[in-house]
């Protein structure tokens, strides 16, 4: 597959990069750096993509593995998407947007590995897939998810 095909495939799945980087980048500068690093690592790993998994799952793993092994700033996340950037025309969209941002803010307050676990859960991966992605046991995933959900509920209250 050519560079163009690769980019087209990544573009179709760029929501993964956007969401995951948004959970870890400390500021907009770091966000740009992480976008670049994920894209580069995906491009370098591209020859190892055998097609026996979905492209989105492959990109998800690359994304998580890159972000969590990358040297990041040791400060609290201090940026957030602003609601007024979007000017929604429909009220329900605005509410949905606000709820999404609140959820993102809540997840950012979790421990780094918990963010990875809950994001993959919310993206529809089952416990077995999450266990494989994280490299931990199935029961451990279930226990962690239970705890994380409790934490998020507390934060969102």
């Amino acid at each position: 597959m050519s560079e163009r095909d690769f980019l087209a495939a990544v573009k179709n799945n760029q929501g993964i990069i956007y969401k995951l980087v948004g959970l870890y980048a400390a500021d907009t500068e770091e966000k740009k750096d992480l976008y670049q690093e994920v894209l580069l690592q995906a491009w370098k790993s591209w020859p190892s993509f055998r097609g026996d998994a979905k492209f989105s799952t492959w990109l998800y793993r690359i994304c998580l593995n890159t972000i969590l092994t990358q040297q990041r700033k040791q400060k609290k996340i201090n940026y957030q998407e602003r609601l007024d950037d979007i000017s929604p025309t429909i009220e329900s969209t605005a509410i949905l947007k606000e709820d999404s941002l609140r959820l993102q803010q809540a997840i950012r307050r979790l421990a780094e590995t918990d963010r990875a676990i809950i994001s993959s859960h919310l993206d529809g991966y089952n416990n077995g897939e999450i266990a494989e992605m994280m490299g931990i046991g199935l029961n451990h995933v279930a226990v962690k998810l239970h705890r994380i959900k409790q934490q998020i509920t507390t934060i969102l209250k």
Partner: protein
Amino acid sequence: MSLEKQWQHINEQEDEDLSALMNNPQLKKLTSHQPLQKIKNNLLINMAWGIGIAVCYVLILFFFPYWQVRLCIGVVLLFTLWAISTAYTQYKSIQPTVSSQNSLLAEMKRHHASMILWMKTQERVALFIYPFSTAGGFMLGGAIGSGRSVDYFMSKPVVQIALVISIAILVPLAYWFAKWLFNKSFGKHLKTLGENIQELSSDEV
């Protein structure tokens, strides 16, 4: 509204920075800032310096006919060659590209282990090479500075004590400096990696 639905909504949003990167990526021009890539670059620089320094040692061995200096420099030369070969082995073994086959835990452990190995190597180099290079440099500098032979220069007790003090001060200092430099460059990252590994590995049920 369910958490899943709220989360999925983020998928539908666009980010200007990401879109800009996608539209004009120039993949071949992008450079990696992965810590392992930095270490790999450092190893390459270390090897280049090591070779340059080894050549200087060989020149000293040829041009300075003091057996004490030759002995120290000879030992340092051997250690330098060992350090270069170790750096080369490590350079070849470090795989800076993130693996999609490894789990997150395995990948974090791999990065952590590679960085620790590099740190230990730097510390070992500091411990083994500096005592001999300090002694060699001290005797060579003293002989050239005084215009006498090393035997004569080193025959004075005060000079012998000064040599011992120099080694006693410089070696721990070099060791500490190597450690400090590593911590400054990668200490916090290593700590975070360690904590994340611990978080994923602990509480196994």
